[in-house]
């Protein structure tokens, strides 16, 4: 992450930006990159979770209600990881 910020700062320093502007832009791009990375894991997790839940519902349609309840809670728990990444992003970017 710091290597990315350093590279971005180096590239931006070669342009007309001042050092402070270049540092700000590098920080913003790093925060966005971190947020994107933080959303990948939950995306994979939700995909796996929902796939297994649909498979369970296909095997036992009579228990679809219980499976859907568990699936919903699992999605929400997995999404908490993305929310943590998002909060870190807004704290890095806007504070």
């Amino acid at each position, binding site marked *: 992450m710091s290597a990315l910020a350093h590279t971005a700062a180096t590239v931006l320093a070669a342009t007309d930006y001042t050092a402070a502007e270049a540092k700000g832009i590098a920080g913003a791009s790093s925060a966005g990159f971190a947020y994107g990375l933080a*959303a990948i894991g*939950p*995306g994979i997790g*939700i*995909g796996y979770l*929902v*796939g297994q*839940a*649909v*498979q369970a*519902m*296909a*095997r036992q*349609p*009579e*228990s*679809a*209600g*219980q*499976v*859907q*309840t*568990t*699936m*919903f*809670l699992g*999605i*929400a*728990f997995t*999404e*908490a990881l*993305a*929310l*943590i990444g*998002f*909060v870190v992003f*807004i*704290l890095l970017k*806007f*504070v």
Partner: protein
Amino acid sequence: MADPMNIRIEGPSPAMQVAVDLARKSVWLIPVVVIISAAFWGIDGVLSSLYALAIVVVNFLLAAYMLAVTGRISAAVMAAAALFGFLLRLGLIFLAVLLVRNTEWIELLPFGITLISTHLALLFWEMRYVSATLAFPGLKPQATPNPYLPSSESSDSDPSNLSPSASAPDSYGNRGLSAPKG
């Protein structure tokens, strides 16, 4: 094994009922959030925390609504809605923050802390209830008719009676798993 494209989830959506229950529980978190935010960040912190709590509740309700609507179509569509809904809701949360980030009342630190903590607190709270309901279905609260009240005999014909039957699942998907009535 049935075809996932042909599986439909009929009846009331358990996810929607869990989300409504989460929204109901979030009312109990409002005083806690207000007191803590007011103690550390003042009135701006209170407003920011309440905004974050509202985002959490709307996020739950929107996720459950998408699952409920698409579950009536097919399980495969529900899976697609869960995945694309994840991206959509992340985008909506991002938009909700972008819209208010330059206003005077927003404090991003209490906003972020409330967003994560209330999301997880509500989930753990609900998970305990759901786990207990699934593990001990006979212990879940029911609308049991009171034998000492004369009007309890007519409660079976009341459409608003929420007691589970053998055919209709209850709010957490249990079918006919009720305690023996003495």
